């Protein structure tokens, strides 16, 4: 399981220690929490609620709910996952009030068909137009190219909401697949299909941008 993201700034602080500091009214700890998570809560809220302004309000609500719930944090999951749970709850109750449901609450995958264009394969299912080399094929090298990050952010923002939410939680935030399923209330196969389609589109976008002519 990957747990990247929050270890860098937490240093030796465990989630429990951080929560204890927050409960002791440690403003510096709170500012660090906000600096680390505000953007990430917003990034997850965007696919959940549909508009930027509603997403911002939902994140505001979430912070208040986090403070009110802090004393009850038991450390059964990471603080990050716990905060995402609260965000999901806020988004759900808001959606319920407005008489709609979250994009993935009741869904089979909306898209069907193969992830790669059938024209790329021969009749026997072998590559006719194989994936083109990118010149750079390590994430480090791609990160150094700011355009790759821009490209990924752009395509991620255009994914259907349910794919975007799954990719954000699983790959951007690095949550375990079971945590993602539980948060979004998806079956294992739905979650996998959404992840698969989202990832495939992102890979293809990078290929279009960086693939070398053969």
């Amino acid at each position: 399981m990957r747990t990247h993201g929050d270890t860098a700034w937490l240093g030796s602080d465990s989630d429990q220690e951080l929560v204890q500091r927050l409960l002791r009214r440690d403003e510096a700890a709170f500012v660090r929490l906000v600096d680390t998570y505000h953007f990430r809560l917003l990034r997850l809220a965007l696919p959940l609620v549909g508009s930027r302004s509603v997403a911002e309000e939902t994140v505001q609500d979430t912070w208040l709910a986090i403070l009110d719930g802090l004393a009850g944090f038991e450390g059964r999951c990471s603080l990050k996952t716990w905060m995402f749970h609260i965000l999901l709850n806020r988004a759900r109750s808001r959606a319920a009030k407005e008489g709609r449901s979250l994009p993935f609450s009741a869904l089979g995958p909306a898209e069907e068909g193969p992830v790669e264009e059938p024209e790329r394969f021969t009749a026997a299912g072998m590559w006719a137009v194989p994936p083109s080399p990118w010149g750079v094929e390590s994430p480090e090298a791609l990160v150094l190219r700011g355009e790759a990050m821009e490209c990924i952010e752009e395509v991620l923002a255009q994914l259907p909401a349910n794919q975007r939410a799954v990719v954000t939680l699983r790959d951007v935030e690095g949550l375990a697949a079971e945590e993602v399923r539980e948060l979004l209330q998806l079956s294992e196969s739905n979650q996998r299909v959404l992840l698969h389609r989202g990832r495939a589109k992102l890979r293809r976008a990078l290929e279009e941008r960086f693939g070398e002519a053969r």
Partner: protein
Amino acid sequence: MLTCQQVTELVTRYLEGQMEWRQRVAFWCHLAVCPHCRRYVRQMRVTIATLGKLPEEPPPPQERKALLEHYRAWSQKPE
């Protein structure tokens, strides 16, 4: 023998460790003989790893200030 097209449909199952062993062996056997699919899987891994490195922005100052005020107000509440 899996086809390349099947590999592109199964890659997430493979990378997520959600394959039963027969299927996994079939997948490996295909990769062993197919450089195109090896590249495909490698590009998927790079895509995923790059997603994990997307930049984050600190909140705008007024937002941070407003939240800090919420925290102060919350701190005043009796426990």
